[in-house]
């Protein structure tokens, strides 16, 4: 019986991963109790109206299948609230796509969250809006890690408030990164690679990358004598290129060695 129901489901929206939904204990009960005409169709039309394409509906519903149990009026109020805060329709569609649970939050909750970010980060209204559009997970996730991370950046790592604002506008993911990873990365970059604060602020991507990559590449450059991170001196290597380029380009341009040499070096670590 479940298979027959799934056939209608799949025919209408390709892409919903039922194996993942099955893992949640109450999902099956919820979905079987829905009536196609009354609940599903209206909400699907509403989502399409919002701007979510057919092929994107699949991934959306895999994450937030519970949206079918929401009241259509509530969903419309929430979208109206976001529009009133000057989010454009295209922005709202993008936010809902990246954070499927956004529309399941009540208006007061969304309001609290937006207010928190505005007060905590002290960015202007437009910058807060851009931040939230880029990473809508901030509105749906818990606020405790964000508060914790802000304290870490300010007190433990010693960044000034303006520096933190600049880094967050460039890499919003820093707010939700794990505390241990941030402290370990900063410890290595600042103490071992001897890079001062103002250069780290210019390249916050280093907090987003894997620490082992930074370590391996830095040790290789140090072994070759090319570990120059001071912009004033010649043969300067910028931090963002250090972490983001793939191995072949790193070896060719920055280390001026072959990939085999890099691999041989890695086997001596």
């Amino acid at each position, binding site marked *: 019986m479940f298979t027959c129901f799934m056939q209608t489901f799949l025919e209408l929206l390709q892409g919903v991963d039922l194996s993942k939904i099955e893992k949640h204990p109450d999902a099956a009960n919820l979905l079987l109790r829905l009536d196609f005409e009354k609940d599903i169709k209206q909400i699907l039309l509403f989502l399409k109206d919002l701007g979510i394409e057919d092929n994107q509906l699949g991934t959306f519903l895999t994450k937030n299948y519970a949206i079918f149990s929401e009241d259509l009026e509530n969903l419309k109020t929430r979208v109206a609230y976001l529009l009133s805060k000057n989010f454009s329709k295209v922005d709202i569609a993008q936010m809902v796509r990246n954070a499927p649970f956004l529309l399941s939050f009540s208006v007061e909750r969304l309001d609290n969250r937006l207010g928190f970010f505005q007060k905590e980060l002290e960015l202007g209204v437009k910058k807060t809006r851009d931040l939230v559009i880029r990473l809508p997970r901030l509105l749906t996730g818990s606020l405790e890690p964000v508060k914790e991370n802000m304290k870490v950046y300010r007190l433990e790592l010693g960044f000034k408030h303006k520096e933190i604002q600049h880094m967050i506008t460039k890499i919003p993911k820093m707010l939700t990164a794990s505390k241990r990873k941030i402290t370990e990365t900063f410890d290595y970059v600042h103490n071992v690679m001897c890079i001062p604060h103002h250069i780290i602020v210019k390249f916050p991507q280093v907090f987003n990358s894997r620490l082992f990559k930074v370590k391996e590449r830095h040790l290789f450059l140090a072994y070759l004598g090319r570990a120059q991170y001071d912009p004033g001196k010649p043969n300067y290597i910028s931090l963002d290129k250090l972490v983001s380029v793939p191995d072949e380009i790193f070896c060719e341009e920055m280390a001026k060695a072959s990939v085999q040499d890099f691999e041989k070096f*890695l086997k001596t670590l």
Partner: protein
Amino acid sequence: MGLDGLARLHGLFAAYKPPGLKWKHLRDTVELQLLKGLNAGKRPASEHRVRFLLGPVEGSEEKELTLTATSVPTLIDHPLVRGPAFTSLKIGMGHRLDAQASGVLVLGVGRGRRLLTDMYNAHLTKDYTVHGLLGKATDDFCEDGRLVEKTTYDHVTREKLERILSLIQGSHQKALVMYSNADLQTQEAYEMAVSGVLRPMNKSPMLVTGIRCLQFAPPEFLLEVQCMHETQKQLRRLVHEIGLELKSTAVCTQVRRTRDGFFTLDDALLRTQWDLPSIQDAIQSAAPRVAAELEKNLRPGLGTQ
């Protein structure tokens, strides 16, 4: 490709464990990468089933819906219903390396796990390079442990170090003969001892079969150690004891395994190579050597009981 990929994934291969990574995380990462590769392959074609569906009949005057038999694919095997084809793989681990050590680590997949036990029972030696630092002593014999003592090391010369190393090798040689339970009066045991093949084939404490100094630039020195039945902590303790024998102190800065049995650094796969095709190739290329070595070691007559 999924099932064929799995068919070629039985055997032993070696990975290079970087320092700072726990061996369990390495095993889990390798498992995830292999599963990703296997699930990306083609699935077998789904079954079909005959169902009676309502549809308009062609060529009839009345617009009536009648039941027609059509063959429809069943959804039981659909990937979005069933999930990924492979969810777990059995990967076994050879001799472990602790978090700070690095080097060759042998892993066995599928039927290769049985070969791991054979390899363990073959009691082969392993090669390590150990970097030591003179002048301080810590509680866990590593560079970043709690400092216990600081000493001078100006009086330490290369000859003194080599004298200590040959003393260590001699004492371990005696222990080697004792633990192999071989009567040196017999011709067979004597020949084996002379050719260097003699070794214990059951549990024994750490035995160093060879140790020499590769580089000496005070305060740093580099040793090459061949040993069996060791743990990396015992190797670090060895460095500490060498420091004490030299009337100074020493800590161990790096322990690196260069050979585990018959897997060398050249066979070890780096982090970028932990994916399905490279591992399959590594298993294929190592398979004949593994078979030959295990056959040689487990042949009766070579045992020293």
